[in-house]
């Protein structure tokens, strides 16, 4: 019974909707799969796929990156972070250190890590140093950080937490006058951990169809089919197109650990603003490992453009799905992976970086609108 990706695609083409439909995804992994597999150009012309808020590094507050850089520059600190955070620029004058990578080049001990367990190991191996783990991520990454804390961390490990929840950003979009999408592909691994029910509000409160998808084209296409058919037949529900991993209720042990180690907080999204209950902070019992309590705030009041995206950078609009990556005026011009201006061109989950990696070079900022025509053709691999 299980259909293949080409069969789902055929079913999508057999649906007849008579109006333009915009389907948003909110996961960098989804956007990567969609873009690399050439799904945009394989779909009927009336379907537009939008990359929404799916990149935690892209919305990590500029002040937090600045703080991490200042900590990294201390001789007694080893700064560890997931690799794609290292090149995110902050808004400081050209002569100043503007990224963790530059701090490293200037002699700071900055180490990219791939797992919270590496942070623990580095702290254990360097008991005389203070190890700061600068951690941005959505729920899927935050749960391992909670697990790390609960398993026990060395006294010299301090977490600078910039973790975010995914659904509040979607709720914010849907509560606005211009959500900008007609259907949602809900994130696969966030739903695996938190439970797909988190996304019920999309159809219950906003009458927008939704489907959870995994990262293979077969799952993404099934989710797109489900959303389109819900629109066609006037039905609304949350479909689960990633059944091999996403279960009702999610991973309850992981949720319990999140609740045990971390608090919900209102949180700032770079260039977007504060979204209620969209962030996490360490519980009191982990105060001794909280970098925000351990170290002073290095940010000076009145620092120019603190908290903002860099000048000319439209990452905030890209993150919210208001424009396509190549509709930003500096995409591919001042801003490339080699010389990134905004975080969306830095992170592996950033839509600009993904589109660039897929070969999109044309800047569509002067055009009325970027379309699927700007996208590369499906790969044959």
């Amino acid at each position: 019974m299980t259909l293949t990706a080409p069969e789902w695609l055929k079913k999508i083409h057999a649906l007849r909707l008579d109006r333009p439909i915009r389907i948003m995804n909110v996961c960098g992994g989804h956007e990567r799969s969609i873009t690399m597999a050439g799904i945009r150009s394989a779909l009927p012309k009336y379907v537009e796929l939008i990359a929404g808020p799916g990149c935690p590094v892209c919305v990590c507050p500029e002040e937090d990156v600045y703080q991490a850089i200042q900590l990294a520059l201390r001789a007694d600190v080893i700064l560890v972070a997931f690799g794609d955070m290292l090149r995110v620029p902050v808004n400081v004058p050209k002569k100043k250190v503007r990224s963790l990578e530059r701090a490293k080049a200037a002699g700071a001990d900055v180490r990219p890590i791939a797992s919270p367990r590496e942070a623990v190991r580095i702290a254990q191996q360097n008991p005389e140093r203070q190890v700061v783990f600068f951690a941005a991520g959505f729920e899927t990454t935050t749960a391992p950080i909670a697990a790390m804390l609960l398993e026990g961390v060395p006294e010299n490990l301090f977490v600078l937490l910039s973790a975010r929840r995914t659904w509040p950003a979607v709720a914010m979009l849907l509560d606005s006058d211009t959500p900008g999408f007609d259907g949602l592909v809900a994130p696969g691994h966030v739903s695996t951990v938190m439970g797909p029910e988190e996304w019920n509000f999309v159809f219950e409160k906003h009458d927008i169809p939704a489907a959870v998808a995994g990262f293979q084209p077969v799952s993404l296409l099934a989710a797109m089919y489900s959303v389109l058919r819900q629109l066609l037949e006037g039905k609304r529900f949350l479909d689960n197109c990633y059944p091999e991993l996403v279960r009702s209720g999610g991973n309850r042990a992981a949720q319990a650990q999140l609740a045990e180690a971390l608090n919900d907080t209102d949180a700032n999204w770079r260039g977007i603003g504060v979204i209620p209950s969209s962030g996490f902070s360490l519980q009191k019992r982990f105060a001794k490992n909280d970098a925000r309590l351990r170290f002073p705030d290095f940010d000076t009041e009145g620092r120019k453009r603190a908290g903002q995206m860099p000048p000319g950078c439209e990452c905030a609009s890209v993150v919210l799905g208001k424009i396509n990556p190549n509709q930003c005026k500096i995409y591919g011009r001042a801003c490339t992976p080699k010389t990134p201006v905004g975080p969306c061109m830095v992170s592996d989950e950033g839509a600009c970086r993904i589109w660039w990696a897929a070969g999109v070079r044309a800047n569509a900022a002067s055009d009325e609108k970027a379309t699927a025509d700007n996208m590369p053709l499906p790969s044959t691999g």
Partner: protein
Amino acid sequence: MQIIQINGFNALCEAKGVRREVSLYLVQGEQVAIGDFVMVHVGYAIQKMNESEARSVWELHDEWLASGADSA
């Protein structure tokens, strides 16, 4: 990745010939055993993989219609 060794909350997992240490701390609610497949994110198993069922409610819906079960 497939679990090939378990020692407490630590597992040795393998995928495409690559072996990695993986924490099972987040999947304490599941019975995981050697030979199981788990989804790994930043060094932690986040869920055990299931046998795939229907991929969409619409698959079940259409199958049900095709089976002629129309008296419900």
